[in-house]
């Protein structure tokens, strides 16, 4: 019996090892090498600088040191030892922020073992994505080539999915790549057309009542007003929601869900961000009244109801803008298609959103909504030197994203897509040469 157990244990070990081997071999040999930290001041000169927060600076200079912007403008005095990058004829834009992504926790959709999005059970406020973030993900460099400098990696599933984190799109390991942990607590609002809707909301309210009571007790212990208590790691994780230091990010799309979620967050006194927001245009007054910002997920999609106009989703950002609702555009979570983020914002431009607002929706607005406004979203002194050198607006298709800097580091632009192209262009060349010789 003992032998048998040992044998089956060994089989499991072997199986696990072979799976690990399989995953390891699936990881590209051509992974990009993270850039080293900025060692001397760098000035990008001669470029049209789109600060986003302020005016366009023609023929301007962007100066940054230790990964932080120190000056933006014209006629800037450069400190001694400044490395000058001539970007004449180019444009400089803030790096894009993917406000809703599964970057680093999702590699290959149909290979479950490479996907770390949904934890078991419906209440997981304690799980933190940055701790499971795979810095070797092939999708990181591809997203970066599309101009994304930060992905807000977001867990999914259940009722309370866990905590999202803002992850830098360059670096050796998850700790140094974590720009901000605990960006938001993800709550998936129950489906309002299900019979179990009321019951599910009761569960949610009960959970928050318990968490509130837990916090009260913990504060009492801290203040010496009560005896020691045992720790509940899940309720512990929810404490920050009640002092306003972490927002609750509620995924809701249908009009009932959105309204009920706003009412609930108000009742609970929580800072709420709406994620999804398909029907948000129907309830703009309520969103404004409660200052609820929206992270629109898909824009490049079709309406959910036959009667809605074919462009209902393309027009949604303009509708929110006109109503004065604060919003960001995030697209789908799938990190393999993070490259589509700029086009999600672009689509809104063809359907009524101004160019300025469209760019802000993937830069400054997500930064502000997600509490990253002091670091990202615009080109201003004191913010991270995470920006793009391009030949045009990064959300226009024809634009080439020529160089990405993340916290002052010059990123490797040779992502897997590009490498495949180079490598197999060589195959074409060789074979054409062969047949020409034959």
């Amino acid at each position, binding site marked *: 019996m003992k032998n048998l157990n040992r044998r089956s244990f060994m089989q499991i070990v072997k199986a696990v090892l072979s799976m690990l081997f399989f995953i390891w071999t699936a990881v590209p040999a051509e992974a990009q090498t993270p850039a080293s930290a900025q060692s001397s001041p760098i000035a990008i000169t001669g470029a049209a600088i789109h600060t986003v927060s302020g005016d366009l600076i023609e023929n301007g200079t962007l100066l940054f040191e230790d990964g932080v912007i120190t000056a933006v403008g014209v006629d800037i005095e450069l400190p001694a030892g400044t490395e000058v990058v001539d970007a004449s004829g180019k444009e400089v834009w803030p790096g894009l922020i993917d406000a809703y992504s599964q970057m680093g926790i999702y590699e*290959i959709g149909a290979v479950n073992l490479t996907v770390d999005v949904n934890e078991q059970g419906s209440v997981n406020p304690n799980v933190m994505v940055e701790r499971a973030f795979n810095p070797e993900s*092939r999708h990181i460099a591809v997203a970066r080539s599309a101009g994304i400098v930060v992905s807000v990696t977001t867990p999914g599933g259940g009722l309370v999915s866990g905590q999202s984190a803002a992850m830098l799109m360059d670096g050796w390991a998850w700790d140094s790549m974590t720009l901000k942990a605990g960006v938001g607590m993800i709550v998936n609002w129950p489906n309002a057309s299900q019979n179990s809707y009321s019951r599910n909301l009761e569960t949610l309210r009960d959970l928050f009542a318990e968490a509130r009571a837990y916090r009260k007790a913990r504060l009492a212990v801290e203040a010496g007003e009560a005896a020691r208590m045992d720790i509940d790691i899940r309720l512990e994780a929810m404490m920050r929601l009640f002092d306003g230091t972490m927002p609750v990010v509620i995924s809701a799309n249908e009009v009932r869900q959105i309204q009920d979620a706003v009412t609930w967050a108000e009742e609970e006194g929580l800072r709420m961000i709406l994620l999804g927001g398909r029907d948000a245009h129907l309830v703009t007054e309520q969103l404004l009244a409660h200052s609820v910002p929206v992270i629109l997920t898909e824009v490049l999609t*079709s309406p959910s109801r*036959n009667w809605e106009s074919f*462009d209902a989703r393309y027009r949604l950002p303009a509708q929110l803008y006109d109503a004065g609702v604060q919003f960001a555009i995030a697209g789908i979570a799938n990190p393999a*298609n993070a490259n589509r983020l700029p086009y999600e914002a672009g689509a809104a431009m*063809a359907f009524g959103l101004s160019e300025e607002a469209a760019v802000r929706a993937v830069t400054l607005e997500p930064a502000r909504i997600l509490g990253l406004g002091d670091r990202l979203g615009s080109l201003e002194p004191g913010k991270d030197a995470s920006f793009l050198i391009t030949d045009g607006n990064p959300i226009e298709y024809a634009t080439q994203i020529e160089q990405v800097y993340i916290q002052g580091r010059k990123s490797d632009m040779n992502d897997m*897509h590009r490498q495949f*192209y180079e490598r197999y262009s060589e195959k074409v060349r060789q074979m054409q040469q062969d047949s020409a010789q034959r």
Partner: protein
Amino acid sequence: MAQFITAASGRVSLWLCLPLILLLILSLPIKSPAQTVPVEGMMENPPSVHAFTNATIVTEPGRIIRNGTLVIRKGVIEAVGRNVSVPADARIWDLDGKTIYPGFIDPYSEVGQQNPRVELDRGTLSWNPQVRAHLTASAEYEEEGDGRADLRKNGFVAALSVPSLGLFKGSTSVFSLGDEAVSDRLVRDQVAQAASLTRSWAFGFGYPTSPIGAIALIRQTLYDAGWYAAAHERFESNPAGLRRPEANAPLAALRHVVRDGMPLLFDVTSEEEILRALRIRDEFSVTPWLRGSGHEYKLLDVLSSERVPLILPLSLPATPDIKTPEDALNEDLADLRHWYLAPENAARVAASGLQFSFTTHGVDNSTHVLRNLREMVHAGLPQETALAALTTNPAALLGISRMYGTLERGKSAGFVVMDGDLFEDTSKILSVWIDGKYYRVQSEPSVDPKGSWEITSSGGWLDGDLNVRETRPGRLGGTFTHGDTEITLATVSSEDQPRRFRADFAGDELELTGMVRLTASISENRMQGWAEVPGRERIQWSAVRTASVETEEREPRERRARDLQLADIRPAMEYGREQQPEQPRHVLVRNATVWTMGSEGILENADLLVSDGKVAEVGESLRAPRGAVVINAEGRHVTPGLIDAHIHSGVNGVNEIGNAIVPEVRMADVLDINNIWMYRQLAGGLTTAHVMHGSANPIGGQNVHVKMKWGALSHELVIDDAPGTVKFALGENPKRVGTDRYPETRMGVEQIIADRFQNARDYEARWNEWRATGTGLPPRRDLRMDALVGILNEELLVQSHSYRADEILMLMRLAEDFDFRIKAFHHGVEAFKVAPELAEHGAGAVVWSDWGAFKIEAYDNTTYNARLLHEAGVLTSLHSDNSQIASRMNWEAAKMVRAGMSPEDAMSLITSTTAKLLGIDHRVGSLEPGKDGDFVIWSGDPLSTRTRAEQTWIEGRKYFDMDEDIVLQQAIARERELLIQRIMEVQND
């Protein structure tokens, strides 16, 4: 030895007979035995001559005899008329105030077929359980729980019994619906073969699993039936030297359908299925009957010229759920409209000059049959037509007019007795007579306690007046007055057959304690009863009627006027059209940047002239022909209509997974215009699409090229001179279907394709031998093999789903082994790895802009795929494989500009090259003289994120216009509002 046999057989026969005897004994009291059954016990001979007098007799639709007499004798009508004398031996039924109608006939029912045998395991069956044509409704008829009582209650005296399972379900038979033995009720056998266009799920998950497979199997089976008859004839004429052809009972039965004109009765579940049935008729010259779905009003332009027998359902759709405003938001216009229009279906079919019959099949609650019928009459169906659809029409259709359908001398005595007009809401069916036998449906009460009664009682305790009235329909109440005291009765009830009356009241005011309970035997004007009083002796009482209540004529239900004006649109849903857009003789688009996608390249400030739906000229400052529609497109761009090489929208079912090799299935069979995506795709400039089979099979089905002619019928979408194409699939998808289907590895995928190719070569050789010599039995036409031969001969172009480079290479090499070429690889996530090999083979690549990593075989994706392939000389196209992305293919191409392609090359990926890879470049893909006038006017550069399609034209007709779209949106909003309001009004009525 002999003794043993006797003993054994004696035992056996006893075993066999016992249940039979039991059955006979048990069934005796409830029904009369068949004519051939020996009498057990006493012979029953009830009188069989009946005269129905003083009745309103509707002898047939439109012929009414007032105050007439109907005489029946031995189950047959002897006389009917105003001056018919009542025979001396007749039992007389005074039907003063009643109306007699001919008995109704249901030409589509599952009476006797509710509990069908699923597994057939005896005899010479078809290989496929869905083919059960040899079954007959008469042999399969199961009396127990056959549902005839429900039909009878609604006035039906006969019904067509339709076997319920399979694609070919078996032949149907007419049964009368009385309580005689089944064998005495069979009116007409083998009336029609029943067929369905969708598979029955009862047989598990085998071929066919989809509507495409179902139609393919129907097609193959009808070919087989013809072949079967021919092969057996040939063999029987001279069997010498021949291998006996297979025996197959279903195919033998279908000979009647393909050779002798036996009708094929299709139960169609949508208007698309009507068209599918008609296409089968066209291919095989069979005689279809259609059991409709209630959506026929959407197809009257087609049906009115078809003269196909129609059987329309008496069912009506459920009311859309608009309980809350949010629920209402989620209701589709198609359902809202159908809710309102379905009651008009029969009226509209009638108004277009078509004859039809009604069926109750599909009415979920049998008490709704007459209600729905009346609703349809209220919606405009003439009463005579409605009655004909229940009587003369089905009788004629089923070939039983000499026995049923009208009340005429010599016909079967089958009729309905009602207490009023059939079409009045308040009228009820009292009885149904079937073959001269009486079936009570509803009794009229013999005594009526309502009215005033004067009570006298022993001791005078209860002397007074009793007043009984109806408090609400079916509920009695009243008062009892004793002296000056009026007491409200607590409960009042009466039972008709026992002739009993009961009432309770609180006796306190009469100084009687507790509840006083009255009970009495009641006759027309008198009651005789006693009262139970707590603490007292029983009080005996009697009452005489002092007044009766005039039964008030119940007001017929006030019906809401049907005053909503809903235009006839196609498809009958959001954004549907009242008619096809007109085609101006000439359309001239002026001053645009024209992307010709031909040798002229991109022309600035150019004009495009489309005449009679074709591109006539592209150039500068073209002369406008007289009467031309001129569009000033200054600042705009014009491109050819976009083409998507790979979509799956607008079809009912995508994959036939019942077999690994299914090139016989055809997507063209299952096009469905009720497809909002088509409109959305038009709005994004898409004009042509290649609608493909799914990827579950190494060799899948045949695809279809369609134009986005929103508002046309499904077959009008098809590009009829496009070459045939067939879907192949390699890699993960075809090997992961089910657990035990071959193949399960990429090795097996390769080998099963090779095997079928070889089979096809052999099949082709057999046919060639037979054609050359004409000796032996004719080979069977096998549609699967035909398709495979077509593939090998490049008449069906291979469009193969693929991911990895190795499998792409494999299929090219395999094709080369069989001496033909693969037309294109779709998805081709790793196509860039074998670009030189693709170029050399001459295969194209149809790829995504940027999909990848959703499975392991898609992990090595690159957005430079199309660019590299193009640079390597491979004909390259983009595709969406996604209904939504298909609506913005210009932006898919635009991504390729970021990947480094020139704008014109990027545009070719969704226009000119796509057309070449699909074999339709003689029609579409560029704006060159002679090509179809399919073009898009864009607000700017079509590859910019700032640009949207303003107009989309197909063959010189404008199918989408940005401004018209706004108007349509407003019209939809208005119509939804009206319909939702109407539902609320009706629900509050």
